[in-house]
């Protein structure tokens, strides 16, 4: 987990370099599709901060939730998925870790191997 976080940090710096290039305009790094996030004015923190620090926010949240039982928060993974999952033509949610979707598009590009979704749901409840 620690290892993949440090990789993703490094990789996100690279990503921020590439994201400005028009060649990547078709990638799903920016919020697009028809998820709730496309209609929201802002995420729980400014976009720049989310890009760099979302993994720390989630990790902090997971510890206080598991050990202290605090579930009233904006920084839950559940919240990420609730907002960022797109809906397909049939009206069912597309998993956020499916190819080209919000989580997978960045993590795939930067080769960040993360283990959230072997346990956590990838579609809103």
């Amino acid at each position, binding site marked *: 987990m620690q290892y993949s976080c440090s990789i993703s940090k490094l990789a996100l710096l690279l990503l921020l370099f590439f994201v400005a290039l028009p060649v990547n305009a078709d990638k799903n790094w920016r919020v697009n599709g028809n998820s709730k996030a496309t209609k929201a004015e802002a995420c729980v923190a400014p976009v720049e901060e989310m890009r760099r620090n979302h993994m720390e926010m989630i990790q902090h949240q997971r510890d206080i939730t598991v050990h*202290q039982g605090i579930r009233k928060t904006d920084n839950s993974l559940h919240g990420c998925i609730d907002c960022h999952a797109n809906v397909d033509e049939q009206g069912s949610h597309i998993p956020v870790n499916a190819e080209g979707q919000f989580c997978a598009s960045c993590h795939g590009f930067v080769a960040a191997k993360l283990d959230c979704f072997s346990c956590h749901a990838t579609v809103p409840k």
Partner: protein
Amino acid sequence: MSDKTNLARRNFLSKLPAAAATAAIAPGAVLHSKDASSAPRSEPVTSKVRWGMLVDANKCADGCSACVEACNKENGLDIHTNPAGADVDSTKWDQQKPVWMRSVKLKDLQSGKITNLPMMCQHCEHPPCQDVCPTGASFRRADGVVLVDRHTCIGCRYCMMACPYKARSFIHENVDIKPTLAPRGKGCVESCTFCVHRLDNGQTTTACQDACAKEGHHAIIFGDLNDPESQVAKALEKYPNQQIRDDLKLNPGVHYTGI
């Protein structure tokens, strides 16, 4: 938390704020704090509460598995199926299937008396699973719920060996459908959580308790052992009861009567 807490002092101190608050409000007007609010928890759990359970084996009906089924449904164990092609020998899957709550039948060989009871994590005050865990994943929450932090569990299964109640399971296969409230996945140990997601969201019942009551048996009473007014504390006072393997001095949160 020291084990040598001066209980008399604590009891005295705990009454002070309540007395002060009552005095501050106009005479006759007492504000009631709502224990079971429906909002998700925003403050850390404290040791003021100790969740526990009383199981009445006399009321536990032979052949009934309502609590086990409710537990499986609540925590997504029932939607966990053997992946296709992963294991041709289906008996292996049946033997390794995660089980949080078991229905146990005891027979006294002399008298022939049959006793039924549910067996699950006993939520010990001094959990052996926590003692042996090499990563700190197995832990006891301040409110008495013994949990596995799956983020730090490495799946070594020492805790399964250490548990005198055989309460823990290991997830051997990938989980296809993940419940939002009770995330679980391959490679971790798991056990009864006292429906911790319910407790953290303001509910004060467990799925097994609700299912048992729905069947009309009312064999399971769940609640705060530290609150003398709670249903479970009153029942513990009223009925002779015991903790299973109390010789180990683990002080489980689950008590049994009628065994």
